[in-house]
């Protein structure tokens, strides 16, 4: 059936070679565009839902949100995605009044970059919650930074000024201290460091408390999650 050696390839004009590949490329391109068009709405909706859930978790009481970017010295609402943008997310209650920011931060952990999102109330200067988005910390040890409910609870009402200080487990006494996880000191300190660094970057960029950008449009939350 199948010969060990394929027969000598017959001489074929290069035009035919080019045409064959071009045709294959064309068909393939059409197929890829097709699947992209079909799946894109679901993919975007999934991503948006994930982000919303994270934002709602870190800033309690929020029912709608909008993306804000820092442009020309002020924070402006936007809906488009740009390259290398550094967005924060504004959280608002049902009436559209401002509650707090959800700020993404990233930095080196024990093994790889830890990406997180934390909620921040500028009027009280407190962190209201923290959610790990990406990490490669050691399972069973470093991954306690999001699996250990006690550690995560540290960030529910945490003062960021003066900067957050990690202390040994059980020694938390001041509002700006965090109990580190026994056995995962490096990972927990990394989380604290990322929040401190991100806060330093953003504290100058955020507008005065009370003059936050308004909710631009009532969000069609129901449409997106359908």
């Amino acid at each position, binding site marked *: 059936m199948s010969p060990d050696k394929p027969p000598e390839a017959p001489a074929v004009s290069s035009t035919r070679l080019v045409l064959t590949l071009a045709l294959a490329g064309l068909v393939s391109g059409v197929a890829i565009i097709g699947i992209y068009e079909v799946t894109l709405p679901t993919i975007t909706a999934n991503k948006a839902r994930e982000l919303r859930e994270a934002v709602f978790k870190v800033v309690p009481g929020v029912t709608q949100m909008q993306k804000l970017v820092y442009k020309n010295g002020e924070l402006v609402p936007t809906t488009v995605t740009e390259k290398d943008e550094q967005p924060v997310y504004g959280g608002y209650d049902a009436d559209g009044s401002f509650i707090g920011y959800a700020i993404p931060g990233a930095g080196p952990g*024990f093994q790889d970059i830890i990406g997180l999102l934390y909620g921040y109330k500028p009027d009280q200067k407190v962190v209201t919650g923290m959610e790990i988005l990406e990490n490669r910390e*050691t399972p*069973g*040890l470093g991954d306690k930074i999001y699996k250990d409910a006690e550690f995560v609870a540290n960030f529910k009402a945490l003062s960021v000024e003066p900067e957050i200080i990690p202390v*040994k487990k059980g020694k938390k006494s001041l509002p700006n201290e965090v109990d580190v996880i026994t*056995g995962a*000191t*490096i990972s927990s300190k990394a989380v604290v460091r990322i929040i401190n660094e991100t806060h330093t970057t953003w504290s100058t960029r955020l507008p005065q408390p009370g003059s936050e950008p308004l909710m631009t449009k009532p969000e069609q939350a129901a449409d997106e999650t359908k």
Partner: protein
Amino acid sequence: MKQKDPDLLLLHAPLLHQGMTTPSAMRDVLYALMPVTVAALWFFGLGALLVLGACIAGAVLTEWFFSISEKRGESLLDASAILTGLLLGLTLPPGLPIWMAFLGGVVAIGLGKVIWGGLGHNLFNPALLGRAFLLATFPIPMTTWTSLRGSESFFHVSASNLALPFMQTKVDIVSSASPLGLMKFEQEVTPLTNLMFGNTLGSLGETSGVLLLLGGIYLWIRRDLDWRIPVSILLTVVMFSGGLTLVDAVRFPSPLFSIFSGGLLLGAIYMATDPVTSPLTPRGTWIFGIGVGVLVVLIRVFGGLPEGVMYAILLMNAATPLIDRYTQPRIFGR
């Protein structure tokens, strides 16, 4: 076993048998480890005996199992499996569940020795390989240091030792950080006398520096040990960490603390000197020792872990064939 000075091995017949064999050398090392073992029992009670026994049982049973299937019965007789089990046990925390210790013994012999072709063919020190496996597999139990026996009865066994196979310890054991952990994370220095005589937390065999040194001297007198390796490791650690202490005495521990804390003495005297996994030439042993010393300080001071002796030795084990190759004495006249 190593001769006193292989450079001078230009002998011709008649040759005399020195009386030294692999089993006799292994037995010597076992004798040298006896004081440390007894001290471990004294400090930690019966639990220590259980951990050590489980390691040895795991190692010996694995050796026995493979020697049947390979039809090589004699490999049990040279006591090397017992030694591997004991060395592994001495690097483990006293409160480790004994099923983990047993598993460590199985891995040490199975993956550390048998799979390479038996004694003399392994690239890595089997005991340290077993420990590396355990540390990667059970990071929390392997870094939980139970407190010393203190006034408890000798026969008191920590509940964590008796955890059922595949299960965690159900009770919270009283634990604390080892001297190296205290240094790294809290900048707390443990008094030197405690480190030297063993009143500190740590693995079974790494608490008492003086007894480890005594065993090393015994081995050196018996010519079972290449003195260059421990000496070069310790000298390198003293010089490197001494230099760092001059820069910043708070962040970097003093050289004496570096030597007597953690598993450095145990590793330098009993593990790095394993004749199978260390270089053969005198020049090679110096390179090996310096490499281990530098890595130990680098990992301890700049790495993510408080202790680095195990990884330092394993890394240099991997470099040993290369070192041997480049330090081979040239044949005269070529």
